[in-house]
């Protein structure tokens, strides 16, 4: 019984060493199809981004010229920006640029879009990365501990808190935290104005409030799922067997309960990363953090279309590449996934 359960866990973690030639061939075929699919998604995304920014009201030339727009200046600028060419031609030119990491130049400043977008994206990755690590480790631990002690005071307290967090949007929680730790007990900065010269201590103090604000909504969901997953595993026969064999409680939790409870969590965690990134956009605005969400919002307000397109495409490309990498990773670890596509 115990043996069987352990095999089930390891089966998901290591490829069988004796994969036949035909199985390898089918895996490669799956890989090629999966990559092709990602490229198709990317093309669809680029068409959507281009179309959405093209149908926005307002001629770009009017936006640039503002009140100085004379018919002659307008016509000259439209020609210069290639706006007199048909949309498909402009789209192809834009895509050719992206292939060389040239996302175009800002309509307002005339500077290349890519460095600005890339730097903001890097800032967002730092925030999202720190938040993800804190959230996953924290909520998995809390979910496990409440699952193990179901019905205890700790369990009931956590249950209450998770329901409160689930119903509190980031901007409400953020405002409460600012009032608490900036106004009432002034120990944290109100704004996360990081820049290239910010020392590591500055990064830490300025990331506390955004991270603590963005975690609870998604974290609470993971706590709830982890708690029920733990409850399911605890009732399994192999846990009872381990106890009967006289293993220490610590060993049972770490070697038997945690790995088995984590299996159904992988999908949940992946899904919630998407939600986390959405929350990051909100806290970036709330704490003036110089990330891609704030950049996107302000660029839309300024009608700086190349900037909007560049930011949207970069976010999309990273999402698609990460998804592809995750799928390939799982397939390498668990050949059954690959075989299904064969």
């Amino acid at each position, binding site marked *: 019984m115990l043996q069987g359960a352990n095999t089930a866990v390891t089966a998901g973690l290591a490829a069988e060493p004796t994969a036949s030639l035909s199985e390898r061939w089918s895996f490669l075929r799956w890989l090629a199809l999966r990559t092709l699919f990602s490229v198709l998604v990317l093309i669809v995304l680029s068409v959507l981004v281009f179309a959405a920014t093209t149908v926005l009201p307002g001629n770009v030339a009017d936006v640039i010229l*503002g009140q100085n*727009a004379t018919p002659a200046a307008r016509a000259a600028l439209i020609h210069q920006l290639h706006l007199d060419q048909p949309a498909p031609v402009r789209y192809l030119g834009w895509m050719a640029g992206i292939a060389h990491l040239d996302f175009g130049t800002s309509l307002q*400043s005339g500077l290349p*879009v890519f460095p*600005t977008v890339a730097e903001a994206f890097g800032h967002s990755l730092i925030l999202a990365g720190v938040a993800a690590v804190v959230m996953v480790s924290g909520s998995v631990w809390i979910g496990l501990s409440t699952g193990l002690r179901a019905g205890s005071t700790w369990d009931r307290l956590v249950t209450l808190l998770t329901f409160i967090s689930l119903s509190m949007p980031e901007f409400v929680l953020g405002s409460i935290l600012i009032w608490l730790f900036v106004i009432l007990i002034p120990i944290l*900065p*109100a*704004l996360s104005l990081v820049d290239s010269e910010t020392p590591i201590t500055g990064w830490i103090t300025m990331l506390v409030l955004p991270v603590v604000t963005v975690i609870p909504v998604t974290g609470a969901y993971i706590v709830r799922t982890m708690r029920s997953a733990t409850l399911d595993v605890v009732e399994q026969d192999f846990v009872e067997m381990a106890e009967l064999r006289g293993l220490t409680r610590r060993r049972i939790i770490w070697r038997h309960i945690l790995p088995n409870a984590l299996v159904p969590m992988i999908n949940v965690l992946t899904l919630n990363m998407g939600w986390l990134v959405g929350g990051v956009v909100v806290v970036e605005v709330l704490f003036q953090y110089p990330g891609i969400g704030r950049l996107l919002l302000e660029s*839309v*307000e300024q009608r700086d279309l190349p900037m909007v397109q560049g930011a949207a495409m970069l976010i999309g490309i990273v999402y698609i590449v990460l998804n592809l990498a995750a799928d390939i990773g799982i397939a390498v670890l668990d050949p059954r996934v690959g075989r299904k596509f064969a």
Partner: protein
Amino acid sequence: MRKTASSVSNGALSRRRTLQLAGLSGVAAALPAARSRAATGGGTLRVGMEASGPSEPIDPVGGYSTQTFTHALFDRLTWISPDQSVVPELATTWEHSADFKEWTFSLRQGVQFHDGRPFTARDVVRTFQRILNAKLGSQSYRILSLSLDPDGIAANGDHTVKFSCKAPFWNLPAIASDTHASIVPEDSPLDAYIAHPVGTGPFKLENFQAGNHLFTTRNEHYWRTGYPKLDAIRFFNVADVTQRIAGMISGQFDLILSLTPVVVQSIRNDRRFTVASIKSGNCLNLNMRADRKPFDDNRVRQAVKLACNRGELIKQIWLDEAIEGSDQPISPVSRIWGGIKPPPYDIARAKQLLAEAGYANGIDVTLVTSTIAPGSVEQAEAYQQQAAPAGIRVKVQQVPATGYYYNVDAGKFDFWVESWAMRPDDSLLFLEYAPRGAELAPTQWYPQEFQALFEAARTAPDEKSRLARFTALEKFVSEQGPSVSPVYINVVDAHTKKVLYYRPNPMFYYRTYYQLELAEG
């Protein structure tokens, strides 16, 4: 050639000269009589300012919010002090011909750009030619191009510039103070923005990230002897006013700019901070589209104006940080204010006018507003209450701030809120009624009489007739125009007690930084 004492502030010449000699032209007015706290000298000032977007150019010819730090990086030929006098900056004196068409500016000698190049007349020529290129989108283009062509500016030696205007241009010294006319070197491109600007100002550019921050350090070779006092200034863009306040409370900023009467209430009685406000000509108009019913009848427009209780608005919405407006863009702060009286709150007369115009049962109108400027929603809602007894049934419609002015310019609304900031040349605001290119302004109000009055005022031969003509223009706009200008709103900034010698300016982006100091402790 006639020598102007000062085309704008009467008899200020001797005083101005004295100030110049002391090298203190701008500061003197800002120096408080006594200061109890000693400045340490040096230090880094951290400023929380409004947002400039992620792609706003730092080039002074084109920026909007970036105007706020042009006074740190650049100088202009002139500056307008808080009391509205035009004072010398990189120009030392100026003269004009009797018809105001020929202007000669003498330039300050021994000034150098941040990269060590000497400042000469050729830099001035290039600066103005850039403004006159419509493609660069300068806000000064419209007023300047009315009177000046790019080939009308010429260097005469290294330290004299001549402007030959195609029309009388009485206010050139004031226009020359505009942030868009910040002096840039002669090799600046005529048709593209500068990415790494070099100025002559008190601080040098160290690091600029559009929409996030601008870091500057002291210019050791600044022409004002003994200035700047600070070692560095760091400007941070913070979109929301309450965030700027929170940033100062949490110790991240020493000075915060462009606040609102309501949010500063939270720090007004806090001993750590000083609220610095000054009367201005900034207005938050309720604009009407004059070519459609019901606003095509001036009696209706007058009724709409009479149904506004300006005193109540000042008390309720602006918390005494505003003065009553008179439905035209020139406020009592301006040098060309003609003493136009604000219309009274007169419900009976408003009803009577509506009835005469054929609306005995009143009118139903939708007032479109947005969070585009602080107080714009609140003022619209207060007006709704005030106008109701007159039979003016206002429906307030709040739309997203994003793209708001695009929709205004596209003529989507009949009755809407629009924010106008005070300008260096007040006649610029009358241009808001003038056509843009081939199309009329969104108010669709451009009568012959207005055009004649504007042209007459702009080209007046002397100061006395100029004031009289501007007064006639203001009166006409106040009585016939398509705008309710309920109030003129103060510029409100705030700083910690450590900041010394700060003084706001009615034109909010005319603040200067070279004289600022940080106190000990």
